[in-house]
């Protein structure tokens, strides 16, 4: 597959990447501060609230850096496979980028001014400054605009190439963006119809459980919006980087469609310990939650089959002999590979969190924090970091010098080591009862709380040490990104670091079913209706009193 040039999409991809890495730097600094405060290694000055720092960390890393990186990657990849943005598409991307950026600056200003210490979940009835919510709303509407341009680009290509198989990258990008679109309707509803009216004083109270249910209808598919682009790197880019071909194109598409269907009807598994939702519906959504195990198992099989077949095609033999043949010294491979390894404990932790009864043992403890640092924090982020080593020079017409590759290996290993330390401590502390999202406290020297400072490994000091390694790795990554964007050697025309696009070993026949978007979107909608209609009617029928807003910080 020859790469197509797409200068307009590339320019927008570069702008998105700039914001993404700025967010990584500030967000990581917030993480370092939190870990040190919690361990008692550092005290914040009176003008800086721990929870404002925590809000910055969550918003910038989980919401901003991910979304901007994903859009950069999808803009660039759609450009390489479908061609450049149309004049109309370009306007939607520009509009979206500026709406998102103005929105997030507004929200960030409110957080830093201490007007929105509501964390990145902003649960009602905590009531932040109206500009915080207006910023969030602008951000979400901006994402819709960019997503629309990219989805439209895919369907325009499809119309212009009747009967042809759509490029795998663009197919997967479209699934990912549909998931974002459909999911964000929930958060948009609670922000627009509950939070903004409450903060402006237009209404005197809100239904809190309704807001939480809308939030989590969004909050869980959100994690698949983060994860699927990392899967795309594994499916579409990695096989090329190791010099092979993707094991199965059709099964890769089918796995993504299963995510599209099963991402949404699951949000209640975040609400298992709260009132207002009946047991039977909690259990039903738990069962549906586990359905995504299937496409993840398919992904694991496809990706590792690709690795093994590639190595065997190069003549490496033996049951495990092929493992040595993988390019361990290539950061473009090592970083995403380490990321995959972290997804094994990440997935297992997820099974524990979502399992109906065990949830009560870990809900809102540090176990959950450990869990999302070994899911979005590493499988997703470290994959994005690894991809940056070709994406950035590809977008800026530069090469990837050997020195940057070597430093990249150091970066990936530092990140993995820091995360290993921090996540082991967090999982263990969570099992010992240590709460998440809590500033330094010994609970008046309660012996249980004091054990969180003194148990070997399972203590806040281990967590802070891991956090220090992670911050070092984040600074190194941001430095490398700046170097690759502005200082790496300029490549001769058409000689920039390539955007690796793999072909499939097994094209298979393309069942028409796989391109039948109406069918898959309908299935997704049907499951949403089945999973949410009765719980929402129940909440309406309970008629819980509306609750006024509070500013408790």
């Amino acid at each position, binding site marked *: 597959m020859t790469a197509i040039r797409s200068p307009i999409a590339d320019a927008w991809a570069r702008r998105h990447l700039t914001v993404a890495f700025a967010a990584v730097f500030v967000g990581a600094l917030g993480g370092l501060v939190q870990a040190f405060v919690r361990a008692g290694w550092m005290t914040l000055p009176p003008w800086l609230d721990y*929870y404002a720092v925590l809000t910055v960390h969550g918003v910038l890393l989980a919401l901003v850096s991910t979304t901007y990186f994903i859009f950069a990657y999808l803009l660039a990849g759609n450009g390489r496979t479908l061609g450049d943005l149309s004049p109309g598409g370009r306007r939607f991307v520009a509009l979206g980028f500026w709406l998102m950026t103005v929105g997030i600056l507004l929200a960030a200003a409110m957080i830093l001014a201490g007007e929105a210490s509501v964390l990145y979940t902003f649960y009602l009835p905590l009531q932040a400054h109206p500009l915080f919510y207006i910023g969030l709303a602008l951000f979400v509407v901006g994402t819709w605009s960019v997503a629309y341009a990219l989805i439209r680009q895919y369907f325009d290509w499809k119309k212009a190439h009747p009967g042809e198989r759509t490029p795998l990258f663009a197919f997967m990008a479209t699934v990912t963006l549909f998931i974002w679109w459909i999911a964000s309707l929930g958060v948009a509803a609670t922000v627009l119809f509950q939070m903004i009216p409450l903060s402006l004083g237009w209404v005197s109270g809100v239904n809190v459980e309704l807001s939480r249910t809308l939030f989590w209808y969004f909050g869980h598919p959100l994690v698949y919006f983060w994860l699927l682009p990392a899967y795309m790197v594994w499916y579409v880019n990695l096989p090329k980087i190791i010099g092979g071909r993707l094991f199965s194109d059709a*099964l890769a598409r089918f796995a993504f469609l299963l995510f599209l269907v099963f991402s949404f009807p699951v949000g209640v598994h975040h609400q298992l*310990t709260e009132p207002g939702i009946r*047991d039977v519906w909690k259990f039903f959504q738990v069962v549906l939650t586990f359905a995504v195990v299937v496409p993840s198992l398919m992904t694991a099989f496809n990706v590792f089959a690709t690795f093994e077949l590639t190595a065997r095609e190069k003549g490496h033999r033996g049951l495990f002999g092929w493992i040595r043949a993988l390019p361990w010294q290539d950061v473009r491979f090592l970083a995403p590979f380490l990321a995959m390894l972290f997804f094994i404990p990440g997935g297992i932790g997820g099974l524990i969190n979502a399992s*109906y009864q065990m949830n009560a043992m870990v809900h809102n403890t540090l176990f959950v924090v450990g869990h999302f640092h070994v899911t979005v924090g590493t499988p997703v982020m470290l994959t994005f970091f690894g991809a940056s080593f070709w994406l950035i020079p590809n977008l800026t017409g530069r090469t990837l010098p050997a020195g940057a590759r070597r430093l990249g290996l150091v970066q990936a290993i530092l990140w993995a080591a820091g995360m290993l330390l921090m996540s082991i401590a967090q999982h263990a502390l969570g099992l010992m009862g240590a709460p998440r999202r809590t500033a330094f406290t010994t609970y008046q020297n309660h012996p249980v709380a004091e054990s969180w400072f003194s148990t070997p490994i399972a203590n806040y000091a281990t967590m802070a040490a891991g956090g220090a390694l992670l911050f070092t790795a984040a600074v190194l990554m941001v430095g490398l990104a700046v170097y690759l964007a502005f200082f790496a050697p300029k490549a001769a025309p058409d000689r920039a670091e390539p955007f690796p696009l793999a072909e499939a070993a097994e094209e298979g026949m393309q069942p028409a079913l796989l391109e039948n978007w109406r069918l898959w979107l309908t299935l997704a909608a049907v499951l949403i209706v089945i999973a949410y209609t009765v719980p929402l009617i129940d909440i309406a029928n309970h008629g819980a009193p509306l609750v006024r807003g509070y500013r408790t910080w």
Partner: protein
Amino acid sequence: MPVHRYEKWWLTFGIGTLAVFLAVLGLRAFASGHTPPGSVLTVDPELIDTIAPWNAPGVYDRGDRVDVYLVGQAFSYAPNRIEVPVGKPVTFHAVTKDVVHSFTIVGTTVNMMLIPGYANEATYTFKAPGRYLVLCNEYCGVGHQFMQAEVIAQ
């Protein structure tokens, strides 16, 4: 869509273990009654100080079981010293007067969200005497880290 033989085995094994796992969860839930905390009883947070039983939070021994009524608010619990017997099922009924909190007894399965507008409840039988730490594990404001209580089982 051709599927490799090994992939069929892999998925059969994966889906099979998943089915067994979910069956165990379901049996525990609906045959043994091991369900998470929950309630559909609504309560007006503004009226908590005036309506029973929330206006008299405390421990009520019913003979073969115990009811505990609790009120959470930023950043404390009433009562904050809860004495309960060992060996009897204790049901904790809890509400919040303001924002979202949790009522969490470290080292037990009692870990529930307090959502304004609803009551919530969880039942636990203490097997060993001791002083159990109660804490709020849902961020509730600037003093969240000070929100604590103690259960004394004896």
